[in-house]
């Protein structure tokens, strides 16, 4: 646990043994310095390389929170914990230089961060602050399949269109982050938001044929301020 100050993250949900934490990444005096004390040399270099203060702070606060959460979960000291990266950049945890079996994923947007930690290797989270975009016309054909576009076109109110865009986006990105490829392998339009979610359900089982035959669980974590989703494989047909 961080010294002296109240932690800027808290656990707020547990879904099938996956613990979900919210991180308050707002600019609150002194927190960023506290966070930096928890980071290792490589992380400090990354922090240094971010061009904008908001990006620096978000990274530092979320990474320090992740470190604290994983240390509790794994029963190790911060100095023993380090991170490696899979081929497309998905981080994994190591204790004493050896990879450990714990699934986790991080997402941040604006002043918000989300961290999911659990025994599932393939888990992904994504959060996006809801904001008006000038380029929805450009994005929608890239991000949405034809049937999603039909759903999107049936919504007429502009604010709702923006909300729907981010709701869809975060589901797709959570799935792609779960398998560790992020936006590098599939077009977002290839990952179709399950019909149950499009109809307003906040949880469902789903399949994503372009990825394989596995069964997934999708959980919507959105609020009025941000869209957010958790995705994890419940039955891994790839094994």
């Amino acid at each position: 646990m961080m010294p002296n100050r109240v932690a800027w993250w808290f656990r707020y949900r547990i879904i099938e043994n996956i613990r979900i934490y919210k991180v308050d990444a707002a600019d609150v005096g002194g927190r960023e310095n506290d966070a930096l004390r928890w980071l290792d040399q490589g992380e400090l270099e990354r922090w240094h390389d971010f061009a904008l203060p908001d990006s620096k702070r978000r990274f530092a606060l979320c990474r320090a929170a992740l470190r604290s959460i994983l240390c509790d979960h794994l029963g190790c000291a911060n100095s023993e914990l380090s991170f490696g990266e899979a081929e497309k950049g998905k981080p994994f945890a190591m204790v004493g230089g050896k990879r450990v079996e714990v699934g986790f994923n991080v997402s941040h947007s604006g002043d918000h961060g989300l961290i999911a930690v659990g025994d599932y290797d393939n888990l992904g989270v994504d959060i996006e602050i809801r904001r008006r975009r000038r380029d929805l016309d450009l994005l929608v054909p890239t991000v949405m399949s034809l049937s999603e576009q039909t759903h999107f076109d049936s919504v007429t109110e502009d604010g709702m269109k923006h909300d729907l865009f981010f709701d869809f986006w975060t589901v797709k990105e959570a799935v792609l982050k779960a398998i560790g490829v992020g936006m590098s392998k599939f077009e977002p339009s290839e990952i179709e938001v399950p019909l149950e979610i499009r109809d307003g359900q906040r949880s469902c089982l789903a399949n994503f044929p372009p990825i394989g035959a596995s069964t997934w669980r999708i959980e919507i974590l959105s609020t009025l301020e941000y869209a957010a989703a958790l995705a994890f494989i419940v039955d891994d047909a790839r094994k």
Partner: protein
Amino acid sequence: MASTADRLKQLISENLEVDGKPVGDLGDLNVSLSSLGVSSVDIVAFGRLVVKEFNLPLTPEDCVQIETLQALVDRIDG
């Protein structure tokens, strides 16, 4: 005719945002979008603009391999 680097800089200053705020004028293109803190939704949007502006096919895999904005200039010119 403006150079590719100048056209790309203009595209960035007019369109690229972090947290809904413009990134502004970039002096040096030897930076990655992720080190600027650009989120993936903004990277995808920017990718579409680059495709339109430079008539350049760009797959998601290309976006990963092109590490810096300067590398993108080289790719467009190449």
